[in-house]
């Protein structure tokens, strides 16, 4: 097939209204990856500049990117933090995150759907949700400790609580914002409440619901450090970062931060973006702006 330039020229000469040309998906993919790499380089450059400035001005041993990457490399090759490998720390954190998120998902989706469909409940029920949303991650620590003491349960609780609010808000909001005309069509067609919910409200709100799930997931991951302060055992990425303030091994802490960022970005960008695209496609929304 022809390239874009030749195809355009040919179409203009031959007076055709529509034409096709060789897709440039490969080029666009390379550009996307290039942009991502440039963006990450920008972060590293900023970090490096700040690190050198701090070393010079304040005389502190601010970890630089090369030092951190060297430590990360050692960790990945099996060096331990607090007697456990980075893999053990990571999988412990991932497991807590998964548990907390799963709980948030079950509670958040069912609450969100109830609040979204029952206006009277929404008016009252959303107030506690907004209150919970305003409680910062660290503030959950005393609550978790009073409820569960030190241990795994408190950690999972904190992750669940921070992931919960955006899931409820977006699920309820998405359902409430379904255009009136969609519900009117179902009502005049004589549909019952369950057909209305499953055939109309849920699909119409699904992009908003996925968005809430995405924000909830990110919230749960970001609260990891705070959540693992109450974990009680010396395992977890957040715990390792938290411990670095005592043993002053900031380079290892930075390496752990890198791992957290890498995992968060991967799940956000790879998993959720493709999930959203797939749902968008299923909903027939991906063709809205096309020819």
């Amino acid at each position, binding site marked *: 097939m022809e390239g874009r330039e030749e195809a355009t020229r040919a179409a203009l000469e031959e007076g055709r209204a529509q034409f096709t040309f060789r897709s440039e998906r490969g080029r666009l993919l390379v550009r996307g990856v290039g942009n991502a790499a440039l963006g990450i380089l920008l972060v590293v450059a900023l970090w490096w500049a700040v690190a050198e400035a701090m070393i010079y001005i304040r005389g502190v041993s601010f970890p630089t990117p090369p030092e951190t990457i060297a430590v990360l490399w050692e960790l990945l090759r099996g060096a331990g933090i607090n007697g456990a490998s980075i893999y053990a720390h990571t999988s412990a954190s991932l497991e807590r995150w998964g548990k907390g998120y799963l709980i948030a998902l079950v509670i958040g989706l069912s609450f969100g759907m109830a609040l979204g469909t029952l206006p009277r409940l929404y008016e009252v029920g959303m107030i506690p949700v907004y209150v919970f949303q305003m409680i910062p991650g660290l503030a959950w620590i005393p609550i978790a400790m009073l409820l569960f003491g030190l241990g795994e349960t408190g950690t999972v609780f904190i992750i669940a609580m921070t992931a919960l609010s955006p899931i409820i808000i977006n699920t309820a909001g998405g359902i409430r914002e379904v*255009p009136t*005309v*969609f519900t*009117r*069509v*179902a*009502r*005049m*067609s*004589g549909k019952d409440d369950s057909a209305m919910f499953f*055939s*109309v409200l849920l*699909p*119409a709100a699904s992009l908003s619901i996925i968005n809430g799930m995405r924000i909830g997931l990110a919230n749960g991951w970001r609260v990891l450090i705070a959540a693992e302060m109450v974990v009680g055992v010396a395992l977890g990425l957040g715990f390792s970062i938290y411990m670095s303030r005592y043993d002053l091994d900031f380079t290892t802490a930075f390496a752990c931060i890198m791992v957290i960022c890498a995992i968060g970005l991967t799940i956000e960008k790879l998993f959720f973006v493709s999930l959203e695209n797939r749902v968008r496609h*299923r*909903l*027939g*929304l991906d*063709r*809205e702006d096309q020819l």
Partner: protein
Amino acid sequence: MTTELRNVSKVFTDPRSGKGLVALKDVDLAVEEGEFLCLVGASGCGKSTTLNLLAGFESPSRGEVLFRGERVRGPSPARGVVFQESSLYPWMSVLKNVMFSLQGEERQEERAMEQLRLVGLEDFAHSRPNDLSGGMKQRVAIARTLAMGPELLLMDEPFGSLDEQTRRKLDTEVLNLWQRERKTVVFVTHNIDEALILGTRVVLMSASPGRIEREWRIDEPWPRDLASKDMIRIKGEIISMLQACPCANGAPAAMIDLEGM
């Protein structure tokens, strides 16, 4: 007589701002069996409110809405609406959209295809609505509403957002459909020409508060000639009344918003 507004008033109130709007005041309107009734008037004069009352989406503040002698308590497949905006579910294929509104369980696919054939879109049964043009979407919407088997067809500026050419083509299709199926149609439009081309009766509404101003019976056969003496006379009368009535100047913007509540 199929449907009737009996001394209906419709009031919208916004408790937050403390503003109220009388969208309709003391409206009497009887839709006759088999007629093609066009409601015209400037925006804000209560055309859409009237249609929503007939459909059962709204209930009257005073007076009553009757369908075949019974009080209307909500929407029903007997009174099908074609909406102005795109109302197809984008997550369903064209065929599934039509099937969604079909009444009865048997031979669903076959019957939905029949409806699509009526509007000439059977080849697009498996397309998604967003792959269709605006005019095609409205044809599917008509097919879907007909699939409900309505006795009364309520159309709320169905072609208002389409270009002139497409609108004229679809007007003709609706007219053919009406002549073939012998449904009763209530058709809301702000386009006087459209009303004159389609209607057996044209009802002019005016605003502040919304009411029925005057009506014309049109006995001319189709296709109609807008340049005929009668048509020019009626059009002239409608335009002069539109200019005389307060709604031509537009009700206050904040008030018009309330109508959509």
